């Protein structure tokens, strides 16, 4: 969902770039509180992993592909603040090194994928954690559902930007229908990849997982 230059006009792009800058500043502050000696390298590697998996487009429907965004994956592993920053790093590298995502549209893309997608899935995740049993399996279920929501959420972000400042005149309704429909499908792929990855990390190093509260796994066994 990397937006090329030209879809959205410059004033709208500038406004969303400013909003993204504010969000990134907040994420730096939040990360400073949340990142420890151990979770800082995990946050870095999560960005690397997301870059890699974003290269793997999977087919979703006739002539359409999708790829991981990684917002929920990063949110569950390292928390929402560091997740926002990890996504921002990936989007900047893609735009500047690989010509993927326009430069004037960078603020729009950051807002959709590094802000909306991360924080919508964080809200869903926290809600599910409250109502679901506190086991690893249920944590993976919560992750799956949060990821499912994260992709259409980013798609709706684009539709809002289109409604405000599209350079084209096609109806917003048509764009909304097509964007949400397609991205619900891509969201299923996102959810599967995210759940598998989180399961693997939970199995090997659950103590590093932000979304998993029982960090004292070593001292767990009591009589």
């Amino acid at each position, binding site marked *: 969902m990397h937006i090329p230059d030209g879809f959205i006009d410059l004033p709208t792009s500038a406004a969303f770039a400013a909003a993204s800058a504010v969000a990134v500043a907040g994420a730096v502050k939040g990360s400073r509180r949340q990142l420890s000696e151990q979770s800082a390298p*995990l946050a870095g*590697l999560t*960005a690397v992993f997301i*870059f*890699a998996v974003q*290269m793997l487009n*999977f087919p979703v429907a006739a002539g359409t592909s999708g790829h991981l965004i990684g917002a929920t994956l990063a949110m569950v592993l390292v928390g929402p603040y560091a997740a926002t920053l990890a996504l921002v790093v990936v989007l900047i590298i893609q735009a500047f090194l690989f010509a993927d995502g326009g430069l004037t549209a960078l603020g729009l893309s950051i807002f959709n994928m590094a802000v909306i997608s991360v924080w919508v899935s964080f809200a869903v995740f926290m809600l599910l954690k409250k109502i679901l049993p506190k086991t690893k399996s249920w944590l993976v279920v919560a992750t799956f559902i949060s990821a499912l929501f994260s992709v259409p959420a980013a798609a709706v972000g684009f539709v809002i930007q289109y409604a405000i400042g599209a350079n084209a005149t096609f109806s917003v309704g048509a764009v909304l229908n097509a964007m949400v429909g397609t991205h619900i499908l891509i969201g299923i792929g996102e959810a599967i990849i995210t759940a598998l990855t989180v399961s693997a990390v939970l199995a090997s190093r659950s103590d590093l997982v932000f979304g998993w509260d029982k960090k004292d796994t070593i001292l767990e066994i009591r009589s």
Partner: protein
Amino acid sequence: MKISNRKFFASFLLVSALLAGGASFYASSAPDGLEKVAEDVGFIETAEDHTFGDFTLSDYGIAGLENARLSVGFAGLIGVLATALVAMGLFMLIRKKAPSKNQ
């Protein structure tokens, strides 16, 4: 089954390198969700060429390298390396510092 930090981080990096450097060759080249919607609805016409569209690495390939597998693979590895440098640097810079000495 708790594995050491070093082993865990090394495997994480290795998997990323294998995916970007190897598996990426098999990725679908169909337009992604947004691009397809833009084609179907019609606003793809408003897209402009990327500022850096002629750069060596644009569209995840090494310009001039004929072998598609090597081209996307090397581009992927360069991306992994670049992301690692930037992201690690950033997060190491802003993490909570451990107390420097015990009183």
